[in-house]
Each structure stands twice: as structure tokens, then as C-alpha cells.
């Protein structure tokens, strides 16, 4: 299992291949299209993180070996692409690692301004929620 930092490094490298932000967006969109859909059972209001512009559904569950598995979806494709990055980095990791992850890749890929400028898209709340879930689970375990 790769560490969070190792996966982040791969993503940074992937984004570094492109200079133009339109190409980076193409990459995000492609990822969005490939993101496995969330099970229909979880695409309900209970799992909804409501942003002003687009919707995000997030489901979290522990795996047999105590890691956390995330599933998510969005009605907007760019949001979905960014979600796929977060899932790749944080899903199937140990709760304590998730809770303390600095998520440097957001800064280093240049995604930061895109995340904060579109606060309405529910992504900031999604990261908060992923971490909160991990922190809660880590506490339960100890």
C-alpha cells in the first residue's frame, strides 16, 4: 500500500506535465469521467454535502483491516475530477494518517486557488468531512 505522500507525489508529477491550465482541466475532467460512481444507496440527502453550485455525496466505511474506504460522487464533472484525486490520496489509508494529512498536493498542483475560489462546490467541506470521519474513527479505535 502506497503512503499518502507517495500518492501525492505522483499526482504532482502528473500535473507538472502540463503548463496550460486548460490541459490540467482536461486531466481533471478525464479523471472525473473515470471516477467510479457511488452506490445509489448512498446518493441520498444523508450523504450529501451541499455546496452552493454543485452537489457532492460522500460515503465512508472502515475496511476489514481498519483502514477507511471513501466513495464519492458529484453532479459536476470538474468537482468529480477533484474528488477522484482526494479519494486516490485518502481512501484505503489509516485513519490517523488521513486525519493528519497535510494534502500538500493541493498547493503544489496549483489546485488551491481553484478549490478556494469555488468554495461553493462543496470540496472544502468534503475534505473537512473526510478528516473528521477519520479522526472520529481513530479515536474509537484507541
Amino acid at each position: 500500500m502506497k503512503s499518502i505522500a507517495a500518492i501525492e507525489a505522483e499526482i504532482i508529477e502528473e500535473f507538472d506535465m502540463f503548463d496550460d491550465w486548460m490541459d490540467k482541466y482536461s486531466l481533471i475532467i478525464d479523471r472525473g469521467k473515470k471516477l467510479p460512481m457511488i452506490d445509489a444507496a448512498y446518493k441520498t440527502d444523508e450523504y450529501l454535502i451541499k455546496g452552493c453550485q454543485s452537489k457532492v455525496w460522500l460515503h465512508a466505511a472502515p475496511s476489514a483491516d481498519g483502514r477507511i474506504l471513501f466513495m464519492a460522487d458529484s453532479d459536476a464533472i470538474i468537482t468529480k475530477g477533484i474528488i477522484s484525486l482526494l479519494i486516490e490520496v485518502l481512501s484505503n489509508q489509516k485513519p490517523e494518517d488521513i486525519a493528519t494529512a497535510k494534502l500538500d498536493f493541493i498547493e503544489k498542483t496549483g489546485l488551491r486557488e481553484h478549490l478556494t475560489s469555488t468554495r461553493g462546490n462543496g470540496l472544502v467541506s468534503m475534505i473537512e468531512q473526510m478528516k473528521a470521519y477519520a479522526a472520529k474513527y481513530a479515536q474509537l479505535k484507541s
Partner: protein
Amino acid sequence: MNAITETAVNEFNAAQVRKDFPILEQKVNGKPLVYFDNGATTQKPIQVINAVEDYYKHYNSNVHRGVHTLSRLATDAYEEARLTVQKFINAKSAHEIIFTRGTTTGINTVANGFGRRYLQSGDEVLISTMEHHANIVPWQMICEERGATLKVIPVLDNGELDYAAFQSLLNPKVKIVAITHISNVLGTINPVEKIIQDAHQVGAKTLIDAAQSIQHHEIDVQKLDCDFLCFSGHKIYAPAGIGVLYGKEEMLNEMPPFEFGGDMIREVSFEKTTFNVLPYKFEAGTPNIEGAIGLSAAIKYIQNLGLKNIRQYEENLSEYASQRLKSLHFYRPIGDASEKAGVFSFLINGTHPTDVGTLLDQFGIAVRTGHHCAQPLMHRFEIPGTVRVSLAFYNAHDEIDYLIECLQKVEKMLA
């Protein structure tokens, strides 16, 4: 048309006018800025920026209080702004012009004042499905408080008001009809003159939300015969935080004020307070002086360009935009009324509005995406939101061409 106006029309040159707006000269994301979010707020010409700067540099002072020179100068400028607005919308008297923070405050002032004075249990208030939240929620609140009922005029599939339904909803229980002149989402121009006449037939008063029309259409409140009309400064090239509530004198005199303190007081004792006369009764606290001065400068600026010239140019530009947009096979317009302003809400088949807006931003194009503070209207059309392009006179035909080109690229990326 006389020779002078004809020359003015011919000389109305977007490229030239555009130079008055310093903000439009910049690049965004490495591309020249194309500002198509005028329905949300308009940019400010240098004449407005200078007027506000001049006020702060030379005569900033509080109004209606001091005996000193600066206070007198500030008061004169503030009251002169009121006269400018009065003439602009042809109100009968200057004290029918109340300075507010914006359209929202204006509607809240009327909903509260009119509601407390006139609404009784069993009465009705009429609005439409295409209203902005600012012309829904204040009425909802006051209806709840007064035991009145809020009734809603439906909208047809093409975005026009269902006029037959409006007529059937009219009855003597309706105390006020509050309706938008131009829909901020659909661009539909409502037949307000007829609506006002029909409302008056059953004894109902009328409030017109002119937030989206004041900058495009000539408005004469006496000719319209509306009882109230509200607009915001920032949508008519003036600063934010200033707006206007026009009300017929007899209506404003009858209504209790909504906010208390400052200029609106005549005399205070702990037993009783009496209120100032119009317009001050509705202007509590120190007003937005620089906003009023900026608004006055903005009105003079567009009067100088000529509202007729502006309208003619904008209609031409809108027609061009409409034709070009409709030529795109993936373009799905929301709202296609026969009387329509330069507001284009649309979806691109199979995509989410926020994706389209995000990518257009990368091309330097500013559009609005989302529900546009009109969630009931989104529910009516069963959509999550729209992409909205809203035009102003500083926009040009080649910007429309660029938009079309970029929309084609965006559609390919998202498909």
C-alpha cells in the same frame, strides 16, 4: 429622429465607451477580460470613480447635521443626487426618492411598512414564479406575520408570465402585486404597464423590482403609475451599497418606518418618539453619502450617452448574441420570451453549469452560474441552475464571437 440623436446613435461606439471602464482593460487568466456578468453587477466608469474620489478628497462630511462648510457641501451633493434620481425616473417630487442599501432593502422596507399598515388576515399578496429571492422572502415573512396569503403567478415554458393566470388571480383580496420588470434569470421583460393597470382595477397596489431594467430602459414612474419601484446602484454603473426606493407620497406617508434612529427622528423622549418627514423617515442612520454621489454621477453618465442609444445598441447586440447562441447545436436556452432583454440563461446538453462557468473563466470570460437567487424558478424548470450571460453596452460583437468559439471548445472538453 433629429440630426443630433442620429449622430449620437452612429457614434455610439462600444470600443470608445469601453475606455471609460478601467477594469475592462485587464487580463484574466492570461486572456483579455470579457465581462458578461452584468446582471450580477456592472462595472464603473471613471466618471463615477472620480466623483467618489473627489468626495473623499475634498468634502467628506456628515450630512444634515453640521453647520460647517464641508457638511453643507456634502448635504448639497447628497440632496442633489436625490434630484438627479427624481428627474431620471420622473417622480413627482424629490421626497418620493428614498435612498436605500439596494433593491433588497427597498423591498423589505415596503413589505414591512405596507404590510403592517394594510395587510389583514385573509388578504393576498401576489408575486410571480420568476422573482428573485429578495422579492419572495420579505413577502413570505410579512404574510406569515399578518395572516395574509402569498399567491404566485406561474411562468410559461418559454419564460413568459402566464398573463391569463395573473388575471384570474386578481381579486379584491389582493392588496399588492410585487413583480419584477425584467427577470434576472430569463431576461423576460414583463408588461408592467398593463400589470399595474390591471392590479389597480381591483384596488391592489404595485411594487416593481427594477433591479434588472433601470440600466437598460427608460423608466417614468408617473407614466407607469406604479406605487413603488426599487433598484440598486451597483447594477447601473454606480457603487454598491446604494439603492433607491421610489414610492408615491401618499403611500410613503401612510407606511410606518422599518428602521429607527438618526436622521429619521424628529423628536425623542423616553415616553414618545415622533418621526421625521419624507424622505428622511425612511433613512435611518448616516446614509451612504458617497454611494449617492456615485449614483448621481452614474446616472449623468448614462444620460450623457443617451438611454435610447444604449437601448438601441444593446438590443442589436442581444439579437446578435441570441442568433449566434441558437446556432450552437448543444445550446439549450432557459427562457425565450418574445420580449427579452440581453440576459441569456442556458445549459449545455449533459453538462453542469458550474463546469461551463469554471472553464469559461479560464478563457477570461466572466459569467454567472447557479440558481441566481431564484430557486423556485429553478424548480419550475427542473434544473439545478443555469449559465448566464448578461450584457451591457460596453460589450462588443467580437466578444460574442469569442464566447461562441469558447463554448464550442468547452462543450468538446465536457462531452
